[in-house]
């Protein structure tokens, strides 16, 4: 896949934005700042998806990650106390030896991955060699067969259409399994996040534990099983 002209320019802008936002996510002292940098990294990656002609995935990325998951993250950051981190009284990284070891590991990983990409891509290129000019001509040919949009300045792609067709035709079982997974996740997170009081009112606590906890929190007695 070879981009050229303005696509190349935008590729470098968004690639650098994604990398720097990712770095700042890891390095920011305040967890809220981390979340905001992660949002900008995700949006930049969504832009890279658009450049790779995966418009639907880019939309899903923004809707699910930025609109859903990151809001969840921000709520959890709000619920737990991060005051100490902001005031700078707490160290945000592990102890120095662990950090040094993991940085060395990451540098080795960078070297290994770059070497692998370099070697592997060269082999791949020898298999099917395609020059930028040929790729551009191929793209132009493909675009000509698409229907023009209402304004006539661009064309309507059928990428999302073919994605949906393949998703429901060839991956319908994984799709159903994914929906079950999401259901399990919903139930699991509700169960995990309940407080002891909520558990007691649903009669979901071991009687022995409940007796012990009642000593600490007398209000629990009022919440004794309301049902049945």
């Amino acid at each position, binding site marked *: 896949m070879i981009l050229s002209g303005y696509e190349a320019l935008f590729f470098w802008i968004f*690639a650098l934005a994604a990398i720097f936002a990712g770095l700042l996510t*890891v390095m920011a002292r305040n967890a809220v700042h981390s979340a905001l940098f992660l949002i900008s990294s995700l949006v930049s990656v969504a832009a890279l998806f658009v450049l790779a002609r995966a418009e639907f995935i880019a939309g899903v990325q923004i809707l699910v990650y930025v609109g859903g998951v990151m809001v969840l993250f921000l709520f959890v950051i709000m619920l737990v106390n991060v005051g100490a981190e902001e005031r700078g009284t707490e160290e945000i990284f592990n102890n120095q030896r662990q950090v040094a070891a993991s940085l060395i590991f990451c540098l080795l990983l960078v070297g290994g991955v770059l070497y692998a990409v370099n070697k592997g891509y060269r082999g791949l290129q020898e298999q099917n060699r395609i020059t930028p000019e040929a790729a551009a001509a191929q793209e132009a040919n493909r675009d000509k067969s698409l229907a023009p949009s209402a304004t006539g300045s661009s064309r309507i792609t059928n990428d999302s259409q073919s*994605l949906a067709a393949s998703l429901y035709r060839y991956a319908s079982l994984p799709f159903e399994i994914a929906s079950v997974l999401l259901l399990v996740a919903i139930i699991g997170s509700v169960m995990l996040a309940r407080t002891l009081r909520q558990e007691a009112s649903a009669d979901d606590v071991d009687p022995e534990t409940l007796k012990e906890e009642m000593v600490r929190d007398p209000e629990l007695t009022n919440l004794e099983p309301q049902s049945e």
Partner: protein
Amino acid sequence: MIMFNLISPTLAFLFQDAPRSGFEQIKYSAANPDLAKFLVIGALLFIIGVAGVLTRRNIIVIFMSIELILNAANLNFIAFSRYLSLTGDPDAIAGQIFTVFVIVVAAAEAAIGLGIVIALYRNKETIWIDEIDLLKW
């Protein structure tokens, strides 16, 4: 950069047959990002995520780093899907389908993980992973 983009196609045309070397090669490949560039960006995002998981103490930031790792994998899937569709592979769209499932699993993982963080904070009053050492002997 724009000037560079305008100039480089001319350079590419001039050097079409002659083997490019050194700086010209770098310029040419920068003006025409290909699969390898996407893979390198994906790899760097992945490694930044790994570094975050290994070095940070805040459990929420560790979860964010995991999202970064999953996103890097998505970028690789999309890049290969695009590459294969250009070479005429009819099954190239599979990469995008995989990405949909990765996003689903990431959403489920974030929901469960943050539920665990809330439960942990309620019991241990901390979000620092080095203070959560119940399973350490």
